[in-house]
């Protein structure tokens, strides 16, 4: 086994997991909401891109551009008409509602698209690779990782450099006082979930171009994403990226030893990190 190659492939895979996790991390950071339907929403976005690709006969990258505003609107509507109604002290209602949503999305997709696995055809770029020092990396996996880093950078900029980000942080701090600033928490939450689904759409693009997907794969993606978020520390976007990379590397190492151990190795890394650091690697100071 080539250790360096395994490590690099793991980091590249981790980029995908960081993309799965970034939206989840944002939503948790802003409103302490754990969205159990996040994985299924990513899969939904992948089907949306697929539909646009086939309907307009265009490249999935272009199709994703059309999917982004649709998914933003979906997030906005979902938050405004469903999730805002169940957010509160009691964690049970939001958990059960997003769990219900997860089952509904999965089975609606199953009804609409059957259980057959699909793929987004990105063309020649899929098989292209670059020599990078002693290892060779695929162009698509590299793009995934670069995109993940960019997404985290942009989200951080939004979070810490814009009026919207101020509203995100202030609302997360104190939902009542922020209303005295003329800010409606419900609207802030709706925008946050909209952005989370935009990121989910980007994740879906790379998920769908890299591998097959079918309506049932959402919950597994959700688990990887959650592991990344929790390992990184709740509410820290850079932590989420680190968490994604750790899960990716652990899975790649596990797979290198025995292909059946890939997922198991990721889970075990998660458990190991939490046993040592229950609050994750980069916990936010005032939580």
């Amino acid at each position, binding site marked *: 086994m080539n250790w360096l190659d395994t490590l690099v492939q793991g980091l590249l895979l981790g980029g995908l997991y960081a993309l799965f996790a970034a939206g989840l991390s944002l939503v948790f950071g802003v409103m302490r909401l754990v969205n159990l339907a996040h994985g299924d929403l990513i899969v939904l976005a992948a089907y949306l891109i697929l539909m646009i690709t086939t309907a307009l006969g265009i490249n999935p990258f272009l199709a994703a551009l059309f999917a982004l505003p649709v998914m933003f609107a979906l997030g906005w509507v979902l938050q405004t008409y469903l999730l805002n109604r169940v957010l509160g002290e009691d964690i049970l209602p939001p958990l059960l509602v997003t769990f219900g949503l997860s089952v509904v999305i999965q089975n609606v997709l199953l009804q609409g698209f059957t259980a057959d696995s699909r793929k987004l055809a990105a063309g020649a770029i899929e098989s292209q690779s670059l020599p990078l020092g002693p290892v060779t990396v695929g162009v698509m996996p590299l793009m995934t990782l670069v995109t993940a880093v960019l997404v985290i950078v942009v989200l951080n900029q939004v979070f810490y450099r814009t009026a919207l980000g101020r509203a995100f*942080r*202030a609302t997360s*701090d*104190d939902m009542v*006082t922020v*209303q*005295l*600033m003329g*800010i409606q928490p419900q609207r802030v939450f709706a925008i946050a979930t909209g952005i989370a689904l935009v990121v989910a759409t980007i994740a879906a693009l790379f998920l769908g171009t890299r591998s097959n997907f079918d309506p049932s794969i959402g919950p597994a993606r959700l688990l990887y994403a959650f592991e990344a978020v929790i390992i990184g520390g709740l509410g820290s976007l850079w932590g989420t990226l680190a968490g994604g990379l750790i899960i990716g590397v652990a899975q790649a190492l596990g797979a290198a030893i025995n292909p059946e151990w890939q997922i198991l190795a990721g889970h075990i890394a998660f458990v190991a990190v939490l046993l040592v650091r229950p609050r994750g690697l980069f916990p936010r100071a*005032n939580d």
Partner: protein
Amino acid sequence: MTLLSITDLTARYGDFQALFGVDIQLEPGETIAIIGANGAGKTTLMRAITGIVPPSGGSIRLQDRDLTRAPAPEILKAGIAMVPEGRRLFPSLTVEENLLIGGQKRQGNGFWTLARIHELFPILAERRHSPATALSGGQQQMVAIGRALMSNPEVLLCDELSLGLAPVVIKEIYASFPMIRQSGTAIIVVEQDIGQAMKVADRLYCMMEGRITLSGRPGDLSREAIHDAYFGVSHA
């Protein structure tokens, strides 16, 4: 024309009634103080005016606008800003960001800007990049006042500015009032400190058990009358 008129206002938390038919008038440019002991209903009144606790009866009008059941963000946009009890700064935001968020949804006549707030409280310019909660209590109070001013409100509500602060710090805080008054903002201060209230206010309202028990100009009210209205003891 009266700037803010509160008529027959009642408010309740579930079965507990906290305000009983409160009437308050605020004229343009005026500063009034509402005094009363703990539990007299002062803070509930502030929360009712700002829409955090919706009133159960009566009315709140700002000039000719009825704000009685408007949600809190609408009330800020209409021109009523509050410095809440306990300051309630946003710990994730820096000093400057706390100020900026105050003016995010309303700039009013634009008199109060970051620069003007820094002029009013120079220390806030120095500490602009510190996390808001790293400041001393008095400095935090300055941030809270500045944050409310950033929306250039018609009416500024100050809930218990002096709570938990040393006398010298309280003096420093109230020293900012002349400039605030100059900017044209009318002010309602809620105070437990009667002496401080009498110094800054054009008129006083005394509250007890959810009712206004006395009102008038500080010069016209005797110490005994205020004492009675405050504590509810009779000197018969």
